[in-house]
């Protein structure tokens, strides 16, 4: 899948939906321990894997298709949940393209040569083979929704 340029979309979702997801994913979804950026090293995060057939998730995938405009299949769709001290390590994703939606919190997203400030309701679409990491929040909770695309 050709998508060489990183794309950043501010205010990707309608404001009400973004706020709704923020509360839903923070307080009403279970968080499971045991996710990390890399298998070899790095802090363990919490995560929640999504069912792509669930209606709200179907809508988010539809919205992503409207945004990306090239055909893709979702390999995985899940929340990354980080707390203070849970630093991400630089890694590549095991897919072609990654879309990362910033749900809530702080802790920038970084490539080796570029920092992208964490802002709620921002979507980043990038080539999965680029090394990247999510910084831990200094306080509070940081939640991102990752779409791994092939």
């Amino acid at each position, binding site marked *: 899948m050709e998508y060489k340029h990183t794309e950043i979309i501010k205010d990707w979702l309608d404001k009400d939906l973004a706020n709704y997801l923020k509360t839903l994913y*923070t*307080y009403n*979804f279970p*968080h*499971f*321990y*045991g996710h990390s950026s890399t298998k070899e090293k790095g802090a363990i995060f919490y995560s929640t894997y999504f069912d792509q057939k669930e209606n709200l998730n179907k809508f988010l995938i539809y919205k992503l298709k409207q945004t990306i405009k090239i055909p893709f299949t979702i390999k995985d769709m899940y929340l990354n949940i980080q*707390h203070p*001290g849970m630093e991400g390590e630089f890694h590549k994703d095991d897919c072609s393209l990654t879309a990362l939606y910033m749900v809530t919190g702080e802790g920038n997203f970084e490539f080796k040569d570029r920092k992208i400030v964490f802002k709620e309701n921002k979507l980043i679409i990038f080539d999965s083979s680029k090394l990247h990491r999510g910084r831990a929040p200094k306080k509070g*909770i940081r939640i991102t929704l990752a779409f791994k695309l092939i």
Partner: protein
Amino acid sequence: MKQIKNFLDKEDFYKIKSIMFSNEFPWFFNEFQTTGKNDGFFMGHNFYHSHQKNSVYYNPIIEPILKKLKPNMISEIRANLLFKTNKHIQSDFHLDKTFFCKTAIFYVNTNNGYTLLKDKTKIKAEENKLLIIDSKTYHAAVTQTDVERRVVINFNYL
């Protein structure tokens, strides 16, 4: 106040610990530990809430403890998980319930966090230990600095 070490037999205890420390066990984020609202977040899992069982993990985790605790009435059962902090951080002193009942805290793992009673008694977090206090005893949770997770199960019962 009563502390009972090695509360469960080893087989029952390690079954509970392995479930609660697995990647399959769901935790829910809570912004504040007490209603004081300045003592940091924790992760919770409600086993018994609003007069009913609230978890598919109730039977494997809670039943073995209740068999020994033998309560007449259960008000609430919840697991609490605290994250490692750089220094010990104490929650606000609080009572779990305003009505008279007992509070039991079952320590799922050993760590250097502790439960602090208002009379300054420190209860060490030692795995498989049960602490029983009455509901009028103000207490606070103190975070650990040595391991990633501090897990307890809190019972309010009579």
